[in-house]
Structure formats: C-alpha cells, structure tokens
C-alpha cells in the first residue's frame, strides 16, 4: 500500500476523498451543476492541494516536530493554507490572467474546502515521507476530479426527468452520489 502505485490507486478508487471519506462535499454538491464549473473547480483543487501538501509537510517537519509543537498543527495548517491561497490568487492574477479567469472564482472558496486541510492532516497522521505525501495529494486530486466530473455529467441529465417536487435538486443528487459510492465499494479491500 505504501508504493507509489498503491497510494495513487488507493486514493482514487478505494478511499476516494469524496465518495468514501466525505471530504470536500460542499464543493462537490455546490459546483457540480455543469461540467465546465466542475472542471474549473477540480483544476483549482488539484493545484492548491499539491502546493498545500508541500507547504504543510515542510512546516510540520521543519518547524513543528523538532520543537514539540505538533498540537498546533490544525491552527498552523489552516493559516498557511489561507495565506497560500491568497498569494496564489495574487500571483495568478498578475502573471497568468487566462488561467486566473478559468479558475479564479473557485480559488477563494478553496480555503474552507475541508479536502485540502484534510489531506494535509492525513499525510501527517500516516507518517508519509515527502514523496509519499505528494503522491497522495496527486492521487487524491485525481480522485476528486473523477468523482466531481462524473457527478456533474449525471446531474446535467437529472435536470430533465419528471420526479416528485420534494426530490428535486439536492435529495436526488445525494441519492445519485450514493449509487456512485456503491460502484466504488467493489474496490474496497484492495491494497
């Protein structure tokens, strides 16, 4: 499970960040109404997730662990993620206007996306090395993209059929997500 392939496969299919760990659900339900937004959001999440993983790993092992300050990790991680997102947004606005246009609106939302902080904490919890942490971030981002892109395609279809008023929108979306989660259950136990 600790090999590169194992971590990536596990993060995408076995412990999918959304469908089996329930992290990042707000964005999963909020911006999955059409494919274009879903792609923008997953690009932004992937980008920030990898940067935040690198940053939090460096902070944890260089500053917190040597001085016995690991209990401050939640506080330090959330602040460094918020700062990172702000800096990335400013940098992008100035130097990469096209990219900023494509995923700019999603960037501020990411600070409070629990998937980012979740992955930073999980990496530390599992004692991953630097390379393993980045691998896990890449796999998780791929799993997030897979789930939200497939889900947005399904949700576009859900606009059309007749259904009772009370099932419209969120309830039927959650039941659809449940079916997707069942599909991934077949993968559980593979290490």
């Amino acid at each position: 499970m600790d090999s590169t392939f194992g971590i990536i496969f596990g993060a995408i299919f076995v412990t999918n960040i959304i469908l089996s760990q329930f992290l990042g659900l707000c964005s999963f339900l909020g911006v999955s109404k059409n494919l274009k937004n879903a792609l923008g959001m997953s690009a932004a999440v992937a980008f920030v997730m990898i940067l935040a993983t690198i940053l939090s790993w460096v902070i944890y092992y260089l500053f917190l662990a040597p001085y016995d300050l690991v209990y401050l990790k939640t506080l330090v991680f959330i602040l460094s993620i918020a700062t990172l997102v702000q800096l990335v947004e400013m940098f992008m606005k100035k130097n990469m206007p096209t990219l900023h246009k494509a995923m700019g609106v999603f960037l501020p939302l990411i600070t409070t996306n629990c998937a980012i902080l979740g992955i930073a904490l999980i990496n530390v919890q599992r004692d991953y090395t630097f390379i393993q942490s980045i691998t896990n971030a890449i796999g998780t981002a791929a799993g997030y993209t897979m789930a939200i892109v497939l889900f947005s395609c399904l949700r576009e279809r859900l606009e059309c059929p007749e259904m009772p008023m009370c099932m419209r929108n969120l309830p039927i979306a959650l039941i659809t997500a449940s079916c997707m989660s069942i599909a991934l259950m077949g993968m559980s136990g593979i290490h």
Partner: protein
Amino acid sequence: MLKELTKGIIKENPLFVQLLGVCPSLATTGSLTNALGMGAAFTMVLIGSNLIISAIKSFIPEQVRIPSYIVVIASLVTVIEMLMEAFVPDIYASLGIFIPLIVVNCIILGRAEAFANKHGLWDSLQDALGMGIGFSLALAIIATFRELLGTGKLLGIPVFGPDYQPILILILPAGAFITMGFVFAAVNYLRQRSEVRHG
C-alpha cells in the same frame, strides 16, 4: 426573550435549512454515539467562538476579520481536540480527522460573520446554543436511521432482537448519502406542504 435560541433548532436549522456542514453530517452519523459526540464538540466550539468574537468584535480591524475568526476557531478546536483525547478517547478515535476539521465547518465561520460580530454576548450565546442544538439534532436524526436499520442497535444496545437482518449498506459510505438524500426529501416535503397550507 429566548427567540435567538429557538430559531436555530427548526426555523433556521443549520443542516436542513441552511445546508451547511454537510461533510461531518455524512461522516460521523454511522452510529448515534459518534453523532452525539460530534454534536457536542461542535456546540462547544461554536459557543466559545461566538462568545469570544462577540467580546472582541470592536478590537478587530474590518480588513482582517476573517483570518482573526479563523485563529479564534482553530485555537478552540485544538483545545476541544485535546480535551476529547484525554477524557473520551473512544469517541476521539472514531471521529478521527473530523474533529480538527471543525475548523473549516462553514456553520461556525458563518455564525461569526453573520451574527456574533453584530450582537452582544447574551444574544451570541443563545444563537450558538440554538445552532449547536439544531445541528446535533439533525445529526442525531440521520444517525438514528442509519444505526437502527444498519445494525439493529441503538447506542450499541440491540433493539430489534436477534432475528433482525441488518441493512448493512446503511452504515457504509453509500448508506450515508442515501439516508441523507431521503431525509432531505422528507424535510422538503414537509416544508412545501406547510407553504401550500399557509401561503
């Protein structure tokens, strides 16, 4: 006098009406014990953050208010996390990463921004208590369905007797989504019916 307290329980329930805090409500409702533990931890953080932010609201500069709120909330979460690890290690272990993740729970930041920085201590305390009870109640409803049908037990005590065949899927991730879907549908149904009747 207590209107700030009661609004959070039904009329402005954070989960069912405002649709905030979806992540923990799926992840921690596999058993009623976990749901109540999460509800209690959440309520304590919310009470603390509402009180502190309401008390220091006039010292916080407008431009950096959100980062300041996050610092207050993250410190409180760290305190609660350490308390739970010391006094209720079982619940701490089964809630795992979702305790530190209370930091990014949108309800707490939302109450700080929408309520505590505009109101006094007493109102903020009531608001926090009401929202906390409302959220815990919502978690408990979902958890009751999942644990009762998924294992035949409630709070670990067998309810249906040994002949009951548990619907195992309800305590797995897929069951969380489907239970939540039906609970939301029921809430929508009740709301639409009362709108028709009154409107």
